[in-house]
């Protein structure tokens, strides 16, 4: 029966997982404290070069809104981020569990074979539609 208890990750991998988990935590705390909308730092190179929004535009502002419980603002900045966030959160939690020597629970165990093309089509559509300067598509713009 001892064979059923799978060993934890080797210590070097656990350190790497721990660093990754802490990185996510630092990012979350940073985005709670700092409002990206108030930071006039470097903009996205795609936006700077073309004047168009990329599908990632508004991600930081979306996460900031979410960290302050403002779901409406979060969805307004980047609704795609909200859709992908559960996957990222799961990966983050699994990373923390692995770092502590535990075994993350099964999640997304089975995905349909068309998940790749579906995500790419949805994201590219989002990319195009959020640049259409008319309602309802303009609601997708950050």
């Amino acid at each position, binding site marked *: 029966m001892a064979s059923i208890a799978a060993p934890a990750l080797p210590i070097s991998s656990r350190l790497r997982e721990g660093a990754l988990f802490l990185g996510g935590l630092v990012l979350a705390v940073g985005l709670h404290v700092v409002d990206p909308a108030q930071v006039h730092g470097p903009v996205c190179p795609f936006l700077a070069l073309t004047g168009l929004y990329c599908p990632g535009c508004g991600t930081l502002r979306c996460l900031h809104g979410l960290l302050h419980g403002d779901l409406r603002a979060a969805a307004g900045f980047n609704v795609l981020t909200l859709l992908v966030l559960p996957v990222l959160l*799961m990966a983050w939690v*699994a990373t923390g569990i692995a770092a502590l020597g535990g075994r993350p629970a099964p*999640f997304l165990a089975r995905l349909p074979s068309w998940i790749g093309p579906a995500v790419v089509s949805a994201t590219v559509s989002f990319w195009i539609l959020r640049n259409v300067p008319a309602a309802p598509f303009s609601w997708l713009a950050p």
Partner: protein
Amino acid sequence: MPAGGPAYGGADVPDYLVWAILVTIFCFLPTGIVAIVFASQVKSKLAAGDRAGAIDASNKARTWTIVSVVVGIAFGIILGIVLSTASVTHININYP
């Protein structure tokens, strides 16, 4: 139980999660997200004892990561060509 059996020794099944996130941010987002989804599967599949599934997810994460790099570079080159042939006025109008 032979060594190297169905153990959750994830070190030999890389999840490419860091690479998937990096190519999503810096190369090409649409395909990068797919890489993140598959990379997210690897650890929990290993923990559930589904080693074959973990290896499959790992391979898919790597493939989509490589695709993101290639498409990202191609997209950058095409964008560069389009922008360099576009009129300067056009770029100025759209500059935020």
